C-alpha cells in the first residue's frame, strides 16, 4: 500500500508553508544575511574566503533553525485552530498518518529552503574564490561545505520533530515553541556538560548532580554532534563512519519523537 494520504498531506503542507508570511520573511532575511556576509567578508582584513564560508554556513544554520522553530509549531497550531484538521482526521486514516504527513511536508519545506540557500552560499564562495587577490588561495572543501549543510538540515529536521512532538499535546503554539527552544538549548550544551563532568572538575561535583546531568545527556538530543561547520571551513578530517553513526543517531531520535507524538496525538481530543 502506498502512503498516498501522507504524501498528499505533505504536499499540501509544503505549499501552505511556502505561502506563509513568516516563511517569506525568514527567507528574505536569510538572503540579506548572505549578501551582508559577502560585504563583511570583502571588508575584513582576514582570510576573505574563510570568512565567507564561515558566515555563509552560519546563515544556512540560522535559517534552518528559524524555519524549524517557527514553521513546525505554526502550521500545526493553525491546522488545529482553524479546524481544517477536521477535514483530514475525518477520513479513514489514523492519527499517525497525520503526524507523518505533516512532518513530511515540514521537512520538505525546510529541506528545499536550505538547498536553495546552500546553493546561494556556494555560488558566493565560488565568486570570491575566482576573484580572490590572494597569491595562494586555500583549497576549499566543497564537499565538506555541502556535508555541513546536510547536517544542518538533519539538525533542523530533529528540531522539527521536537516541535511536532510538543505540538501534539501543547495547548498553545507558544508553549510548544518554548518547549522546543528549551530542549534545543539543553541539546546544544549537553556535550560540553558531559565533557566537564568527565574532566578533573567533574570529580568534585556531587554524585546526584552528576547522575542527573548524565541522565539529561541521554534523554536530550546531542545537537553538537551535528555541527560540522568548523570542520568544513577549516577542512578538518571527517571520518565517514562517525558521520554515518551521527546521521543514524539523528534519524532514530526523530523516529522516536514521531512515534511518541503519534501516541499522544491519538489520545488528544480535537475540540
Amino acid at each position, binding site marked *: 500500500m502506498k502512503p498516498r494520504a501522507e*504524501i498528499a*498531506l505533505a504536499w499540501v503542507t509544503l505549499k501552505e508553508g511556502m505561502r506563509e508570511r513568516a516563511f517569506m520573511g525568514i527567507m528574505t532575511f536569510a538572503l540579506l544575511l548572505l549578501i551582508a556576509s559577502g560585504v563583511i567578508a570583502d571588508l575584513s582584513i582576514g582570510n576573505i574566503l574563510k570568512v565567507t564560508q564561515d558566515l555563509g554556513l552560519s546563515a544556512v544554520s540560522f535559517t534552518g533553525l528559524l524555519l524549524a522553530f517557527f514553521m513546525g509549531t505554526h502550521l500545526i497550531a493553525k491546522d488545529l485552530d482553524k479546524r*481544517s484538521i477536521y477535514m483530514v482526521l475525518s477520513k479513514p486514516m489514523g492519527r499517525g498518518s497525520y503526524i507523518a504527513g505533516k512532518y513530511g511536508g515540514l521537512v520538505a519545506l525546510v529541506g528545499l529552503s536550505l538547498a536553495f540557500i546552500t546553493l546561494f552560499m556556494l555560488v558566493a564562495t565560488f565568486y570570491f574564490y575566482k576573484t580572490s587577490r590572494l597569491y595562494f588561495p586555500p583549497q576549499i572543501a566543497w564537499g565538506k561545505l555541502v556535508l555541513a549543510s546536510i547536517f544542518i538540515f538533519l539538525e533542523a529536521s530533529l528540531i522539527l520533530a521536537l516541535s511536532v512532538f510538543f505540538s501534539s499535546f501543547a495547548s498553545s503554539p507558544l508553549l510548544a515553541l518554548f518547549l522546543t527552544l528549551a530542549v534545543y538549548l539543553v541539546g546544544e550544551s549537553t556535550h560540553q556538560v558531559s565533557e566537564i563532568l568527565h574532566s578533573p572538575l567533574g570529580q568534585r561535583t556531587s554524585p546526584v548532580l552528576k547522575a542527573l546531568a548524565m541522565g539529561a545527556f541521554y534523554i536530550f538530543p546531542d545537537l553538537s554532534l551535528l555541527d560540522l561547520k568548523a570542520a568544513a571551513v577549516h577542512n578538518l578530517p571527517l571520518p565517514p563512519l562517525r558521520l554515518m553513526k551521527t546521521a543514524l543517531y539523528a534519524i532514530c531520535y526523530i523516529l522516536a519523537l514521531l512515534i511518541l507524538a503519534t501516541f499522544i496525538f491519538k489520545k488528544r481530543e480535537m*475540540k
Partner: protein
Amino acid sequence: MQAALRIEDLTKHYKKGLREKIVALRGLSLEVHQGEILGLVGPNGAGKSTTIKIIMNLLFPTKGRVEIMGINARSPKAREHLGYLPENPSFYDHLTGEEFLLFTGRLLGMEGNEGREKAWELLRMVRLEDAGRMAIRKYSKGMAQRLGIAQALMGDPRIVVMDEPMSGLDPIGRAEVSQLILSLKKQEKTIFFSSHILHDVEAICDRVGILVEGRLTYLGTPSRIVSTPTWLLKIEGDYRGILREKGLTHATMVGRITQVEIQEDELWEVMDAVRGCNLPIYSLEKRRCSLEEIFAKEVGSETAG
C-alpha cells in the same frame, strides 16, 4: 437491518478548570436507520456538535459508545463509511476547490484520474463547476458550504454526517442544501444532520430528534412535533375594538398590525363572524409552535429514552 449509526448511552463531560465540568451529553441513545434522513434539532449548546464530533472520533465519549455500521467509532475503519461536513467548514484555502477535492481523494487513497473525475462530478453536483479553479479563499460562505458537502461525498460514503449544513446561508442557499440532501437520499445514502432551526428539518427529514441540554426530548416523525396548530390573523390598523365585540378578547398590536391567535377548531366560526366588518386583512397563517415552545415542553407520545 443493521443500524447505520447506533448511539448508546452517550455521556460527555468537558473539563472546565480543575474541578468544574460541563455536561454536554447526558446518556443520549439514538439509532439512525439505513437510508433515512434524521435531523437533530436543538438550541445552541444542546450538544449537537458534541454528538457529531464523537461520531467522527474527534472527541471521545466519557461514557457510552457509538457504532457505525456495527464498527466502533474509535476505529479508523468506521470512517470508511462516513462523510463529514463540519460546522463552519474550514479548508486549506490556498488551494482551489478542485485541488482540495483531489487532496481529499488522495487522503481516501484514490488515484489521480479517479479522483479528478469524482471531483468534477461533485463540483457539478454542488454547482461549483465555474469556481472549481478558483482559490477557496475567495469563496462565499454558501460556496464554502457546498464545497464542504462535495468533500464529504468524495469517498462515496454510505452515511453522511453534517453539522449545521444550512447555518449562515440565505433562503436560496438553504433550499439548495435541502435539495442536495434529498438527492442524496435518492442515492440511498443515510443522512444525519443537525440544525438549530426546526423549519430546516421538518420539511426534509424522515425522523427528527430534539436535543435539549444533552438529552433527547423527542424522536419521531416531524408532523407529530406540532400537535395542534393555531392560526394567526393579522389586520392592518388597530381593530382591537371590533374584534373584542366579536368575542376575540386577546388581540394584540404589533406595530401597526393587529394580531389575534385563533384555535384550529374555531377558525371558520371566527372568520364568519368578522366577514361583514370589511377588515383590511393583512395575512392569515398557520402558526406552529415556536422552537422555544417545543424545546420547553417534553413532547409526550414518542419521547425517547
